[in-house]
């Protein structure tokens, strides 16, 4: 059976949540396969990330290089090519770093690439069977990857349960020498610009009235702000509303926006993509209003209303106003 490697993201010396999920993803591929964490970076932050990874994984490979103080996909790629054995399965999280690194890495390893996998169905001969989603989660597909030359997989964050025990005691092996020197870079990291805080800080809101593309027109925003006012809610949104410049970026909920922890989250005209849901934490009471009764958001919500928001929200507002007198 192929060896499995898991690429560990870390920040400020702490392993990312996905580090705890990839071990369970690996077990779903083959519970018998040896699994090794690969942790790249530099200095003491790298060392503490490695110690944490050693509690989750039976083996940890460390790549320590000053050039990786800020990990640039183009810098770490040739190092991984130098150390990952031919035919191995390499798991990465499907987020902005994994999406940057994995496709090109699969070419350089001459391996198959399975992007954004949500589940595995195991190995059959020299085929790795997995499940993906298409069309924003509206349909799923079974996919088969040829394992003979190895496979690079990006795994959807949150799709596998985290390893709660973290009771391993893996050995940390320094692979920096084998990984080789940093390449001359054709892409150079300059700086990270931190997002501005907007007029409302939705990360602190208790009630969020959140709108998506279903609002259809900028003029209809009024409906939502009016309702939010009578409810005492703040207004947040999905990404297309920010892309259209109808609301400021600081109101966007999701993996590339804000992480919110309200008590109540009301999703109006939002389909329920994993990038959007990834920004909702703390198990709030979720209400979804969507005109498509099959919208994936209804799988994530506690209570659903199949309705046109442009008609439903004003009626809800009227009823609340009556109640408040």
């Amino acid at each position, binding site marked *: 059976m192929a060896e499995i490697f898991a690429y560990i993201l870390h920040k400020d010396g702490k392993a990312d949540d996905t580090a705890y999920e990839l071990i369970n993803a690996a077990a779903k591929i083959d519970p018998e396969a040896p699994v090794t964490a690969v942790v790249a970076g530099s200095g003491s932050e790298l060392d503490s990330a490695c110690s944490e990874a050693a509690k989750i994984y039976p083996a940890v490979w460390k790549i320590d290089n000053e050039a990786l103080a800020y990990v640039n996909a183009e810098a770490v790629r040739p190092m991984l090519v130098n150390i990952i054995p031919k035919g191995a399965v390499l798991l990465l999280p499907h987020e*902005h770093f994994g999406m940057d690194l994995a496709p090109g890495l699969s070419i350089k390893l001459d391996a*198959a690439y399975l992007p954004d996998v949500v589940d595995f169905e195991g190995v059959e001969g020299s085929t790795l069977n997995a499940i993906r989603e298409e069309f924003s989660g509206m349909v799923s597909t079974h996919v088969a990857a040829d394992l003979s030359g190895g496979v690079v997989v990006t795994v959807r964050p949150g799709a596998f349960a985290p390893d709660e025990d973290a009771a391993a005691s893996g050995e940390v092996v320094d692979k920096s020498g084998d990984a080789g020197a940093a390449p001359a870079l054709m892409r150079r990291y300059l700086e990270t610009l931190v*997002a501005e805080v907007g007029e409302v800080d939705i990360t602190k809101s208790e009630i969020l009235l959140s709108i998506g593309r279903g609002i259809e027109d900028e003029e209809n925003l009024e409906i939502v702000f009016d309702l939010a006012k009578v409810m005492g809610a703040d207004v947040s949104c999905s990404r297309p509303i920010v892309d259209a410049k109808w609301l400021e970026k600081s109101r966007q909920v999701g993996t590339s926006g804000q992480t919110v922890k309200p008590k109540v989250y009301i999703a109006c005209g939002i389909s329920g993509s994993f990038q959007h849901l990834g920004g909702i934490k703390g198990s709030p009471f979720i209400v979804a209003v969507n005109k498509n009764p*099959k919208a994936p958001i209804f799988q994530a919500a506690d*209570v659903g209303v199949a309705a046109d928001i442009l008609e439903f929200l004003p009626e*809800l507002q009227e009823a609340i106003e009556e109640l408040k007198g």
Partner: protein
Amino acid sequence: MEILVCVKRVPDSSENEIEVKGDGTDIERDDLVYSVNEWDNYAVEEAIQIRDKVGGTVTVASVGDEETEEVIRREMAMGADNGIHLMDDAFEGSDGKGLATTLKALVEQGSYDLILTGAQADDGAGQVGGMLAAMLDYPFASLVNLIEVVDDKKIKVGREIAGGNQEMNEIDLPCVLSIQTGINEPRYVGIRGIRKVASVEIPVKGVSDLGIDAGVVGAAGAKVKRLDYFVPELGEGAEMLEGSTEEIIEKLIELLKAKGGIK
């Protein structure tokens, strides 16, 4: 600046309900409304804006069947200078690598400084740009939401990372970038714009024109195969409120009050 933008014709999933065919071999395509992939449209707009600032040309290329031509033409109506339609039975069943192999052959026939793709398309894979760059040994950046031309050797790009933060990079030309939505505001294309380019010749290229071996693309060359489409067994999901609108609202208000959803 010579810019190539790779685009895909896709069912518009915000306009359509996507249903799986009875035998699971495909989705129901008969009544679908198709358009250009949302991410690609931002890429074409960005290319046009760069060209208008620094000069050069914008070429739009797409791999796909006969119908794909309408999407190439639409992007030309937006302002792209040239279109190239990559069509061959041999492309059928290509995986990401097969598509990247096809586009690599096209890139090698031209002399492009900048190659743009969308960050992802309808299959949510987001793979072709990164693969293409690796095959060409060009630098790559994904999820780009800002481009600033520095000079004819390099550009500055912003990448969208977590929490709405932006990672700034300097990148040498030629390079490949995958474009994230929101980088610009794509212009509207009216019927008149489409009419203007209605009779423009769009060259079609197949495997022999591109000089690629039919065995390395399409189903023959694919290491990854989609076996079927299915609708997963759904969990319990939400409790759907039923009844007249009044009844629904009454129940909803009760629930919201109980959960602290009305202050």
